[in-house]
């Protein structure tokens, strides 16, 4: 690409200012609970299967743990399943849930279209099929509801921060994971945002799968930067994807050249931000989101409609990392659990 | 059993003045041979006399330089039977030929009936479902013959040619095969069989042909020949009683190897002592126990019962001491050579410890060692880096012997030490073994053909039916004593 020519046009202070504004807004802590305040009490004795994309991705492992806790709070029999990124495991799990007479299933980062048949079968069998962090279409034969932190806000926040920090001279390399709807959408938004910045350039983008995270991505990330000395930004669909790549990049001395940004705000990503190895991670309050998905499950099992849960997001960077408790993910800054507990305990 | 009426329509085998040369070797010199339908014709001769070549010419493996071969449908059973150990007898029977089909599947009923008929005359009709490997070698050989015949059902078979069909068989099983051959002959099938067992010739054949150096030196009724006569014919004018170069065998007081009450597959209560400094030649036919003796005496295998004492202490399974006993197996290609490795590696495999310098094998010393023994045993080509498989059998044989001479062994057990080795190399090797003996090592040589090595032994023993039936100082016996003790 034109990357070989030295000085890419740099944006003026004016337009980076608005990017800065967007970023700084997204960096502010969450102050109040934006979710629903009333709803049906916990439906007793429900059996729910929480199917995660795979424990190996911290962004699925974390919701899995949260689902178990929410289950306890609801007094439900919740089974959390490691999907191993394998559609066969997905479909077998759904099938077993049906056979086992479960009341509901929640897909976490699992695309309903990759298991159309089973999802339809589940709906036909009268199960509620919820969807969290999976960006699934709600329909008769598809999922019953979909909980998702704002795609737009997350993508924009990432792009804005990078453009700001590179003074509008962003040369970005994007790692997309088409395997997962939500992360793909986040990077897509970020990508559009960068392309819309006149002084920025999208150098290249590559697709990858969860299986590549620990194997192909380290090499790929390093060579991508080597290939193009002007590269200064790398954005990947989700934290877990880059966790193994960053040590390699660091050793190759590439982190001095390239700012890495990812999504989810899971604990190991935050540690990397503290070390200065990761520039930014946009969190979608994953535990909160999981509780929200469980709340909608409870509503539908009570025969009510699912509601918008307004799961918050936050851009986490060196600037605001100190405001977050070490040793854990970004939780949403406030006690969301207590809020849902209130609803569920109500008589 | 001479011509039976039923032989009408069967064609005889007629071989006229066939000659075959391999480079320098005149394998066959205008050999003529006629085999009448229903007759059993024995073909005998020393190793390398041309028997197999004649067979190979008949089945077209070789084409004759001169002469003509005319024969009808002939079935061949080669030394290896071409059977499949892990399949059943029935499967072996049908494999490799068009099978009877019914409703698109193998018609096992018909095939079984066919096989049963073919095997009935040998009382093997009930083995159809057994795994071949579970049958005795004799029965396997019979099945190979029956199969060969059965194959040519279509064009009624005229003759059956068997190359050393009995050599793999323990003596007590040969009877079965003999009866089988008689049965075929009774059907009017002409039979040619090659053997080294002269008693078989007497028992089975009506006609015998003796080959010597590729020449047919006798053809006639078996009745006209006594076993010693056959031996005489095979050996030729070479004096049967060669004068033995007198030698003061300096024998150690205590035996190096001392075998006591040994019992195993073909071995039945065998005792034998081998002293340091002497060369013992053990002879016997296949099945006499000879083929087991070597591995047991060398401590490579442990007998079912009885002991082999080495330097006063019994050898146990995996006994490290056994590595000071050299062992040259008769089955050179499979059990002797390390295929794919170089001559150097084949020779040095047991001597590496002594080539170590500064903690590592010194290439220089190893090459020196290999070079020395290729020289001493005149291995051709003189190239230690050549792959062992590019050497002729005899040269491979020399290299393997070198492997053991190189470790200055306490004892050497060599099976068929001269197999495939030409007469000069033979002198080298045996002289080498003598030198080793003179260093105080005990040497045990085993051979099916006494002529090969007898003159280099201090003591000869003969095995029959698994025990020692003759044990004498070399000078006290003549070769015919040994041959008759063997048969």
């Amino acid at each position, binding site marked *: 690409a034109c990357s070989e020519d030295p000085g890419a046009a740099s944006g003026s202070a004016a337009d980076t200012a608005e990017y800065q504004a967007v970023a700084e807004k997204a960096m502010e802590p969450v102050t109040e609970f934006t979710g629903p305040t009333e709803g049906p009490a916990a439906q007793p004795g429900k059996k729910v299967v929480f199917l995660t994309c795979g424990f190996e991705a911290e962004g699925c492992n974390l919701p899995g743990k949260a689902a178990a806790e929410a289950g306890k709070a609801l007094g439900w029999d919740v089974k959390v399943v*490691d999907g*191993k*990124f*394998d*559609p*066969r495991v997905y*479909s*077998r799990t759904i*099938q*077993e849930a*049906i*056979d*086992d007479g479960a009341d509901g299933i929640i897909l976490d980062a699992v*695309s309903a*279209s*990759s*298991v*159309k*048949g089973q999802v339809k079968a589940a709906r036909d069998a009268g199960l509620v099929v919820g969807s969290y962090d999976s960006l699934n279409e709600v329909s008769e034969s598809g999922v019953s509801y979909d909980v998702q932190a704002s795609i737009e806000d997350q993508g924009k926040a990432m792009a804005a921060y990078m453009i700001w920090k590179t003074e509008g001279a962003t040369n970005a390399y994007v790692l997309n994971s*088409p*395997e997962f709807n939500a992360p793909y959408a986040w990077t897509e938004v970020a990508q559009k945002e960068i392309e819309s910045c006149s002084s920025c350039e999208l150098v290249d983008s590559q*697709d*990858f*799968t969860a*299986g*590549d995270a620990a194997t192909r991505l380290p090499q790929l990330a390093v060579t991508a930067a080597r290939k193009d000395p002007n590269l200064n930004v790398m954005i990947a669909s989700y934290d877990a994807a880059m966790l193994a790549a960053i040590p390699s990049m660091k050793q190759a001395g590439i982190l001095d050249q390239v700012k890495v940004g990812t999504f989810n705000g899971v604990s190991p990503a935050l540690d990397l931000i503290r070390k200065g190895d990761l520039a930014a991670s946009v969190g979608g309050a994953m535990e909160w989101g999981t509780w929200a998905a469980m709340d909608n499950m409870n509503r539908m099992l009570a025969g009510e409609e699912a509601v918008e849960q307004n799961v918050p997001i936050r851009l986490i960077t060196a600037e605001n990392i100190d405001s977050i408790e070490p040793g854990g993910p970004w939780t949403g800054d406030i006690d969301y659990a207590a809020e849902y507990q209130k609803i569920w305990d109500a008589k | 059993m001479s011509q039976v009426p039923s032989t009408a329509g069967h064609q005889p085998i007629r071989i006229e003045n066939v000659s075959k040369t391999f480079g320098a070797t005149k394998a066959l010199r205008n050999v003529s041979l006629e085999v009448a339908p229903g007759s059993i014709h024995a073909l005998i001769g020393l190793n390398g006399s041309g028997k197999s070549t004649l067979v190979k010419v008949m089945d077209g493996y070789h084409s004759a330089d001169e002469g003509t071969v005319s024969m009808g449908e002939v079935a061949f059973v080669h030394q*290896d039977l*071409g*059977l*499949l*150990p*892990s*399949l059943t007898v029935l*499967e*072996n029977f*049908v*494999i*490799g*030929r*068009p*099978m009877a089909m019914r409703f*698109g*599947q*193998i018609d096992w009923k018909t095939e079984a009936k066919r096989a049963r008929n073919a095997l009935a005359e040998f009382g093997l009709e009930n083995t159809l479902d*057994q795994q*071949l*490997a*579970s*049958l*005795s*070698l004799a029965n*396997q050989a019979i099945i190979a013959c029956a199969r060969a015949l059965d194959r040519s059902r279509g064009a009624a078979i005229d003759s059956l040619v068997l190359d050393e069909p009995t050599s793999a068989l323990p003596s007590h099983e040969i009877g079965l095969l003999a009866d089988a051959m008689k049965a075929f002959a009774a059907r009017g099938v002409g039979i040619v069989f090659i053997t080294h067992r002269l008693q078989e010739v007497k028992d089975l054949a009506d006609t015998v042909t003796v080959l010597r150096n590729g020449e047919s030196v006798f053809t006639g009724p078996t009745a006209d020949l006594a076993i010693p006569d056959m031996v005489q014919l095979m050996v030729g004018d070479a004096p049967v009683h060669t004068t033995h170069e007198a030698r003061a065998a300096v024998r150690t007081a205590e035996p190096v190897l001392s075998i006591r009450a040994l019992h195993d*597959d073909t071995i039945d209560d065998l005792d034998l002592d081998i002293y340091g400094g002497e060369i013992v030649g053990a002879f016997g036919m296949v099945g006499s126990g000879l083929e087991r003796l070597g591995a047991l005496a060398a401590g490579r295998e442990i007998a079912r019962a009885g002991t082999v004492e080495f330097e006063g202490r019994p050898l146990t399974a995996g006994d490290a001491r056994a590595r000071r006993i050299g062992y040259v197996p008769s089955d050179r290609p*499979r*059990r002797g050579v390390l*295929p794919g490795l170089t001559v150097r590696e084949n020779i040095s495999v047991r001597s590496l410890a002594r080539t170590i310098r500064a903690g590592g094998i010194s290439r220089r010393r190893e090459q020196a060692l290999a070079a020395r023994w290729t020289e001493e045993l005149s291995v051709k080509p003189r190239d230690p880096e050549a792959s062992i498989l590019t050497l002729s059998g005899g040269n491979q044989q020399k290299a393997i012997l070198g492997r053991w001479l190189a470790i200055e062994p306490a004892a050497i057990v060599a099976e068929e030490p001269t197999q495939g080795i030409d007469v000069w190399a033979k002198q080298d090797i045996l002289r080498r073994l003598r030198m080793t003996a003179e260093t105080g090592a005990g040497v045990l040589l085993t051979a099916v053909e006494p002529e090969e090595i007898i003159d280099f032994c201090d003591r000869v023993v003969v095995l029959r039916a698994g025990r020692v039936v003759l044990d004498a100082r070399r000078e006290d016996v003549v070769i015919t004593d040994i041959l008759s003790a063997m048969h």
Partner: protein
Amino acid sequence: MTTSSTRSETTDVSTASTAVPPAHRLRAILPRFGMVGLFILLLVVFSILRPVSFANSANLRTILVESAVLTILALAVMIPLIANDFDLSVASVLGLASILAAGLPAKQGLPVPVVIVAVLAVGAVVGLLHALLIVKFDLPSVVVSLGTSTVLGGIVLWYTGGAVLYEGVPAALTNLGSKSFLGLPLPVYYMIVVAAVLWFVLERRPWGRNLYAVGSSEVAARLAGVNTARTRATALIACSTLAALAGLVLTARVGSGNPSISNAYFLPAFAAAFLSLAAFRLGFFNPLGVVLSVYLLAVGVNGLTILGVPSWVEPVFNGTALIVAIGLARLSIGKSRRLVGA
């Protein structure tokens, strides 16, 4: 070759003398059905422990259908194994086939019948290539198929860009995977047909005899008049074609094509094939044994899951079962024959 034949040789001799008394005969028959016994035992135990959740037709149906694809693949692996050829590429062929089954209609807009033919053809071509390299050029099957496997993985990556294909997989195709007949989903029938046909050609047709003959000793088989080259070649082709069929069924069932699916199938397919050494024809790879093996493991895993054991128990169960089974096979056939040769 030399090694393997050496071993078998020495044993003929050793076993030659041992006769076979009828009592011993029985003891030789029984082990063949040990695995059937174990299978039934598992069914009974789980049915007692979980009469509702395990022993209900729905669950058993799930077990049947969920393992149909694996069974077809394991049967494919088994074929060349009989002749001591390893095809390490089956899982990748399944992967490519599954991707094409999803992509050809969606991306290239081909009609389903054409897609089916095309996918099977691709499998056959891979098999043909294997035959050429392994049989004609005498290259080791492990290495060749490892190579082709890697290349096929690359082709999948190229075709999918690493993304799961699920848009536009036509109902005409997914119906073939989801519709039922007499209460059983179609894939179960495909599996049954494949197993039955294989059993027939291996047990009842000359080709099968020849294949086992080659496995017993290629040289001896050739001497006996078997066209060993053609036999091995057809085995390799059949293997790849069946693997493609498995991929086709997978996509029809799941309704999507996943670029990294093959990993999940590689080891289980071989495990089931090897397990068959311990069932019915002891020491021989055999189709019924393969089917039994797959379902033995499937029932075990399903039952354990329903009992609520954690998921790590599954691989531990599978691996242990494999080792125990091969150990029993060795015990019952004795040290005589080598069980697997490459």
